[in-house]
């Protein structure tokens, strides 16, 4: 589904927040590597998708009314076979109903278990004077506690993307620290430029986060993604 169609669905449902599946689909179509994540409307579909993408898988509730999925028991990881997917599906539905009986449930997201990589974050927010601004940083504690992040105003040039990645204090971690694999910096720079182009072409996006992205020796994968739209009147 092209981004315009995803936005149209959200507008129709009077939502500003895209679901994780929608957000990842949009980013994938924009050309950013995301962990394969598909929407299953029922249990049988969840099992079929799991077979296709390969075990183990992760199941997550997809509902615009549930924001903190893990907190309510809406996320199950490390599901190794068909039986595990079946049990997890039932548990997630029960937990969702318990948390919010009126929740509008799209289904569950079936996602490949991503191999752990170096966690980074990449996002976009809007500055009142300068418009869309990208932020890049290392994920987890480093971004939250140390605020070790770099900003650039959209649109970015290749020079900007290269400097942005190298500007953070944690850059040596990406180069491969104490025998760890180095991160694929070229692909990160490419993802930054792709995101810059994507948000420049879509002023209707208010905020966007990929947190975390796993960076590997070869390639990267966005594990979680969030897109918030501008109010229709504003965009």
């Amino acid at each position, binding site marked *: 589904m092209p981004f315009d169609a995803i936005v149209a669905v959200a507008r129709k449902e009077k939502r500003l927040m895209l679901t994780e599946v929608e957000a990842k689909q949009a980013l994938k179509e924009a050309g950013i590597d995301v962990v394969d994540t598909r929407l299953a409307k029922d249990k049988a579909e969840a099992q079929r998708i799991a077979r296709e993408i390969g075990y183990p898988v992760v199941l997550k509730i997809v509902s615009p009314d549930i924001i903190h999925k893990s907190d309510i028991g809406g996320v199950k990881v490390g599901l190794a076979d068909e039986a595990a997917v079946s049990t997890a599906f039932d548990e997630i539905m029960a937990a969702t109903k318990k948390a919010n009986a009126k929740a509008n449930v799209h289904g569950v997201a079936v996602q490949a278990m991503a191999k752990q990589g170096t966690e980074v974050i990449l996002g976009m927010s809007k500055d*009142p004077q300068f418009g869309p601004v990208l932020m890049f940083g290392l994920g987890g504690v480093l971004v939250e506690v140390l605020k070790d992040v770099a900003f650039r105003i959209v649109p970015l040039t290749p020079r900007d993307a290269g400097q942005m990645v190298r500007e953070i204090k944690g850059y040596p971690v990406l180069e491969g620290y104490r025998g760890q694999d180095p991160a694929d910096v070229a692909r990160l720079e490419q993802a930054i430029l792709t995101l810059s182009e994507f948000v420049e072409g879509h002023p209707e996006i208010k905020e966007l986060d990929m947190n975390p992205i796993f960076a590997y020796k070869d390639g990267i994968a966005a594990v979680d993604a969030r897109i918030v739209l501008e109010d229709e009147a504003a965009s």
Partner: protein
Amino acid sequence: MPFDSKTLDRVFNPKTVVVVGDKKATQYSWLRNMKTVQGRLFSVQVDQNEIPGIEELGVTNYTSLLDVPGPVDYVLVAVPRKVVPIVLSDCVKAKVGGVGIFTSGFAETDDEGKGLQQLIAKMATDAQMPLIGPNCMGLFNPKAGVRHSVDQYHGESGPVAFIGQSGTHTIFFSTTLEAVHGIKLAKSVSFGNAAVMDVSDFIEYFAQDPEVKVIGAYIEGTKNGRRLFETLRKVAARKPVLIWKGGQTDAGARAANSHTGSMASSQAVWDALMRQTGAIRVDSLDEIVDTTAAILKLGELRGPRGALVCMTGGESVVITDTFSKQGLQVPLLSDKSYGELSSFFNVIGGSYKNPLDVSWNFQSTDMANRLLGILDEDANTDFLGLEIFVGSMGRRRERDKDSQGRSFFDAVADFAKGSRKPFFAMVTATSAEKEAVEIRQVLREKGVLAFPSFQRGAIAYRKALDYWTDRPAG
């Protein structure tokens, strides 16, 4: 709104200037600022009590702007805020070249002020009339004799333009750059609340002004960040633009809001703006005047490796730390340099590794010449910085003539003129502030770039080097 350069040329180089509303309570300060106008200067004042004082200054007063024999190129408005729209309406009728509004009490003050600011902005925009301010000190053009302040010079001009959201910083930039480095301005503008003309308009104008080689700016905020970003992307790669951002901290941003009504973007975004466009970030008046001087006087810079000369061992340690903290290097010199130095340099109580702790080896001007000559030829370093002592060592040096009969300072000046490497001096005052100022003045008059401390030299060199080596392709 953007104005074409012909429209702005008229107001920036005015032949006829009018001050509206000057009064005795402020010692007719605006008329005094403008007494140096090369063309015609008039006053407009309706208050009969004020007029005799104006005429005593030798300025012809009219009671209406419409009576002033035109064309009028620049009007400085200093009337109470409620009267500003009335004066502006006369300016439109008289088709004046442009207006600077000194009056404050607009968007920075209250809702009534916000409304008045919107009104005057609309009047000027509808009439396509350049409006500077309100809440500003207007224009400075020394050649035209138009000034922000009586503390400023007039007559001769220089290669620098300044754009300031604060009148104080705009005045101090011109006077300090002249006093410390002997460099004059071509023009400056203090633009206050930016009701019509914003920082981007002035950057664009100075970008195409052939007289202007360096643009400096003090900014607290901008109404249109996108336009500033796009303007700087065009300009900063071709012509150095130095930006001093006021309101970097949360408390500072609050102060900026009450000063010029500026909205805050985070400092991180301003930093990004500068990195992306190649504008040079400076953080103080000292940094902006020093970096301007380094860009203009040192020419194109190529590298971070310095050959540094100090008078004593303690200074040689500290100067190395100071330059290293700016990401500059103090490497070993070439074998050839060491070969030459070892033939005459007395290492007892000194060292010629780098930095050179010259101690007694600098007592005669001939030796100083020889040392500087070797460092200038050294293949391992890109620039040369020289500490000059004040006090007894300084005075002794001044008396010692070299074999060509030159004093130390004359020899240094001749060296600076002919040196292959960028060369500057650092004169730290210690207890002799007055003497240090005098020595720097002697150097300045002889054309040698001199900084008042190691730190100011290191920061200025670093920032100028960034301009030459780390900016996006234009």
